[in-house]
């Protein structure tokens, strides 16, 4: 009598498994990441309506104004005909003084603004050309949004189709694809991308094309793995036996099984696309100026740091980081919810 009870009593999930299930169900929505992502999408969609200034034009007189909460600095200076070398710091020429006060005379003491104070007119300050940083960040969201949506759509689809084919047909198709993925890793793609963008022109279309080169392998690999598991499922064999076409089997029977995973992968890949796009534009191969992009804004502010003008670089970089952090947190949450198996893949 070698009877095994486990086959008869359908084993209920263990306490721990049930507890884990309940935890997953009740785990709170990632409120803050979703809010931030909503903000980015909103900014991108309604940039012309909500941005306080023109992002591409500024007045030079407004340049390098700090964020609203920072005060300026003033100094009492003596109005002189010509600056003496030693007292340069405490003197001002008559010509400059007249701009500030038309009644100034030589020998007057004048209060001069040495560092401008922040004003509510420019909440996050202005850059070296007097453009409003906040408005540029709002418009920059647009670029990031467009680039990620198009890249994800095109690159993701290519990856999915290749992954489906590789997983389903196996053999040399699979082998070739996997070697391509290996080679993709070995190529300094970012350099190739830079070369392409510089030689073919800094247009959105080229940038998106180049970014697609980066992201398709991740999708292809993921889908391939899923297909390898799904293609041996009974319902797929059944479809095959009943004479369904290969395309039908792939897209109607297998593809839906990969969607959960794809949503998670896509969310996490958006973050990577945004980072790559900003890297390209930081290196000078993004959308051409003066169109604001977060990466190029960081680059703009780089040389100004030494003069204490930190806000030009800081805020757009913060925008990138918060967006990507939110995407990662949201992606992790989705993964726990949709596909806990994926955890090992990252």
């Amino acid at each position, binding site marked *: *009598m070698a009877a095994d009870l486990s086959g008869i009593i359908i084993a209920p*999930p263990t306490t721990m498994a049930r507890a884990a299930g309940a935890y997953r169900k009740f785990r709170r929505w990632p409120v803050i990441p979703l809010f931030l992502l909503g903000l980015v999408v909103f900014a991108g969609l309604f940039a012309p309506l909500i941005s306080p200034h023109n992002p591409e034009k500024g007045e030079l007189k407004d340049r390098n104004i700090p964020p609203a909460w920072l005060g300026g600095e003033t100094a009492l200076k003596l109005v002189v005909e010509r600056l003496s070398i030693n007292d340069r710091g405490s003197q001002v020429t008559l010509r400059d003084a007249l701009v500030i006060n038309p009644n100034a005379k030589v020998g007057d003491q004048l209060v001069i603004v040495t560092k401008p104070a922040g004003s509510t007119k420019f909440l996050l300050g202005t850059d070296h050309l007097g453009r409003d940083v906040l408005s540029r960040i709002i418009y920059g969201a647009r670029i990031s949004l467009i680039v990620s949506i198009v890249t994800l759509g095109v690159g993701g689809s290519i990856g999915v189709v290749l992954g489906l084919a590789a997983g389903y047909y196996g053999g040399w198709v699979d082998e070739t694809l996997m070697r391509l993925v290996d080679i993709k890793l070995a190529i300094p793609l970012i350099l190739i991308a830079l070369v392409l963008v510089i030689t073919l022109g800094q247009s959105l279309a080229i940038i998106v094309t180049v970014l697609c080169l980066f992201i398709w392998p991740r999708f292809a690999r993921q889908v391939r793995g899923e297909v390898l598991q799904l293609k041996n499922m009974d319902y797929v064999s059944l479809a095959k036996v009943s004479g369904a076409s290969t395309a039908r089997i792939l897209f109607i029977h297998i593809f839906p099984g990969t969607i959960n995973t794809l949503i998670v992968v896509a969310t996490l890949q958006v973050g990577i696309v945004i980072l790559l796009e900003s890297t390209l534009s930081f290196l000078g191969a993004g959308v051409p100026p003066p169109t604001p992009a977060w990466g190029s804004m960081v680059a703009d502010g780089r040389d100004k740091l030494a003069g204490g003008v930190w806000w030009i670089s800081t805020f757009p970089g913060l925008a990138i980081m918060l967006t990507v952090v939110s995407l990662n947190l949201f992606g992790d949450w989705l993964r726990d919810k949709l596909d806990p198996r994926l955890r090992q893949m990252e």
Partner: protein
Amino acid sequence: MATETRINTETVLEVEDLRTYFRTRWGTVKAVDGISFDLRKGETLGIVGESGCGKSVTMLSLMRLIPTPPGRIVSGKIILDGDDLVQLSENELGKIRGSKIALIIQDPMTSLNPVFTIGDQVEEAIKIHQDIPKRSVMEHALQVLRKVNIPAAESRMKDYPHQMSGGMRQRVVGAIGISCQPKVLIADEPTTSLDVTIQAQYLKLLKDLQKDSDMSLIFITHDFGIVAKMCDRVAVMYAGRIVEHGSVRDIFNNPSHPYTAALLASVPKMDVDVDRLFSIEGQPPPLHNLPVGCSFADRCPVVMDKCREAYPNRSTVSDGHTAACWKLE
């Protein structure tokens, strides 16, 4: 049963009112809730029950391997050879685990470390517990591997787990278990993932090893076939408690708790033709939210009002045979 006559009265392990709770965010999970049993020298005790009834937590508690937090042995005594394991420090436990009390785990495919050789893994326990020169450690390991019938043991020592079959790996796990002549060997579903012939061989091997060394065995299983073949006594667990306890003969011939009766009824019998197999309706209650009365009440075919009010006491059915059911009072 041949071994029955040889059982002496010397008690090796005594478990008294053991409670192991897990703290989770839904409340305290009472995985093991006040179990008591003892184990005599050379005896085999079977602990039987469905998945999630607390068998495995019992096993981990006996080894003091409950992950803390979230788990904790809240109260009780585990007296092995005069020492109360519950009170021992991690250091002292290190000396006892593997030498006085040893473990054979469920899954032979995952219970060996993939990056070390079989030799390394068998030798490790010997090195920890026996202060002998390197050369004899190896010889000893070899000897143990031969004891569990590993062919060409010498060359197998250099193999990695992935180079062996499931049955072979399970033998290695067994070899590790017996390598330091433990007084108590706990086998947690040691044969579930093996096929039937290998399972039978393995069980016979365990039985032989036990006979040789006079060690006591605790068999954790959900398979009554194994219980019948291997055990002297059985403890039936349900929802963290032992509901019935007695000799194999008592349990099989006179199951006194409705749960035991149901379990036995659901085992297919060779000699009787049935159209449908019996199954127990419903699921065990969640361990973090146990009902006030008997935890089996909701699934019990002979439930009474009383059952929902208080947990029944242990009643003696016959000498050495107890069950916790209101029906018996």
